[in-house]
């Protein structure tokens, strides 16, 4: 079978800070509409991998490709039009409205001296509608719940019109209802063709959301491949260093305990 060019791929990647490798031998590829989940304990280096993929820190060695272009040759603007980042939380001390935040996604599409105009406003409202929060456009982010803020950040990434979303623990700090809301949004985006790479420390979520999974802990890559195949009790026991049981419920979902 002919494989299409992935939107994002990495081969034999070694990552780390200040020339010291945290891991090596990471291979991954992401095609349109696929969801890849990085699973591993806190502090395993998932965020470092994301920062490397976004070109915010250089890899120690190995190659990252965005489509047919090496990441290292692309400018910040070029990267931003292909890869959008959804951070774990909003970290600004200022009370922007949800719409203001989403409009920021247009930065890579606008000239240096431009401000967002009617077209960008329309795009931003479409992004908010896709996530079902158009009615919150004028609300200050300080008044939103954690889940709503996460949806605003996802909407901003959509407004960036990139093919790949990189989401750092999108549901880590959310309560149950918000978690479900964000997980549904992720599935819908994938169905619409967006490629998504997200990190999680919850194996149940990885099994429910992801097509592929990459298991990562401090000693390196434990396993990588189709989520249904590699999310085994044995791999997860090795990943977390504690015995893990895998069960399949009547609706076909995987649960780990």
């Amino acid at each position, binding site marked *: 079978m002919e494989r299409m060019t992935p939107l994002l791929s990495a081969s034999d990647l070694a990552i780390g800070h200040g020339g010291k490798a945290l891991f090596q031998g990471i291979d991954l590829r992401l095609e349109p509409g696929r969801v890849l989940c990085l699973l591993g304990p806190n502090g395993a280096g998932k965020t470092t991998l994301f*920062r490397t993929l*976004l070109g*915010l820190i250089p890899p120690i060695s190995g190659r990252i490709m965005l489509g047919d272009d090496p990441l290292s040759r692309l400018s*910040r*603007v070029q*990267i*931003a*039009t292909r*890869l*959008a*980042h959804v*951070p774990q939380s*909003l*970290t*600004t*001390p*200022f*009370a*922007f*409205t949800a719409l*203001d935040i989403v409009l*920021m*996604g247009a*930065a*890579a599409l*606008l000239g*240096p*001296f*431009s*401000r*967002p105009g009617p077209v960008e406003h329309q795009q931003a409202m479409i992004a908010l509608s896709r996530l079902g929060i158009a009615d919150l456009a004028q609300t*200050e982010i*300080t008044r939103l719940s954690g889940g709503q803020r996460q949806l605003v950040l996802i909407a901003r990434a959509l407004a*960036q019109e990139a093919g790949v979303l990189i989401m750092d623990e999108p549901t880590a700090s959310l309560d149950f209802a918000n978690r479900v809301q964000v997980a549904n949004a992720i599935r819908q985006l994938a169905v619409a063709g967006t490629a998504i790479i997200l990190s999680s420390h919850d194996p149940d979520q990885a099994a429910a959301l992801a097509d592929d999974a990459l298991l990562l802990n401090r000693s390196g890559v434990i396993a990588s491949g189709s989520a249904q195949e590699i999310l085994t009790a044995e791999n997860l026991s090795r990943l977390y260093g504690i015995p893990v049981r895998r069960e399949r419920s009547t609706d076909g979902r995987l649960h780990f305990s």
Partner: protein
Amino acid sequence: MTERRLSWLLALALIATLMIGAMIGPYALTPSQIVAVLGGDRSDPQAVTVLWNIRLPRVLAAAVVGAALAAAGAAYQTVFRNPLVSPDILGVSAGAGFGAVLGILLGLPVMAIQILGFVTGLTTVAIVLGLTLALRGTGQVLVMVLCGIAIGALAGAGISLVKLLADPDQQLPAITFWLMGSLAGIKRPDIGAALPALLIGLAPLIALRWRIGLLAMGDDEARAMGIDATRLRLLVIACATLMTAAAVSMAGVIGWIGLMVPHMARLLTGPRFDRLLPASILIGAGFMVLVDTSARSIATIEVPLGILTAVLGAPIFVFLLARGAKSWSE
């Protein structure tokens, strides 16, 4: 309220404060006199002299200084992602103060004192930025602020030394007065001399104002959205510092404006820098004109501006904290 309407309202308010500032003084002018003189009517020579040579330079200088400090403050607060930052956090005021008091000690003419203050203010921030780049590593913004505190303290020590050496009858009062801020000695050419630096500093801030606002999201986020965060922040710091140094060398050290006016503006516009900057400029200019007009009219002697801005600023700031704390604290 729409952006444009707000700008018009603030511009009208500024014109009103300029008018009030031009009217009040030992030789009071009426609005109709002012309009007539501005329109070219020379039938009242005394009014012409007072307006063109005394009042207008003074109110325009106040407006320019207030606008510059407020714009720089708004820029600093946005790029440092901290609403408690004022434009002298990197030591520009202390540095400019050191140069100016040294000029007073050496008995230099007024223009030379201003130039010396301007140059030392910029040099101080250049040293801070140079040190930050040399120490480059983790937490660049934090390193920058700490370097600013260290170098600012050094300049403060220099100021103390100059005060110690100064002639207590002649120079020390002049130094003290300068360090508290005043526009009493302002002449028309002073404004012209400071204007190029102010405009060079302001133009990039206005042109890039929407992008600069994205720096409020943090470096990684701004970069992931396609912004070269490090370079843009350095540019903003350079521009805001240039404006602050020009304002301080003209009017001495005036605190509070750069910290407080952006807060007042933010209540009206929200935190978006593209809206905050014009509002800060207009409010800063108007506020400073009112403060300066009070400074020269509430007592028989001129009250230093720094004292008035603190007396007015502290209560207003506490009021803003009470009203707006929830809008910028996490």
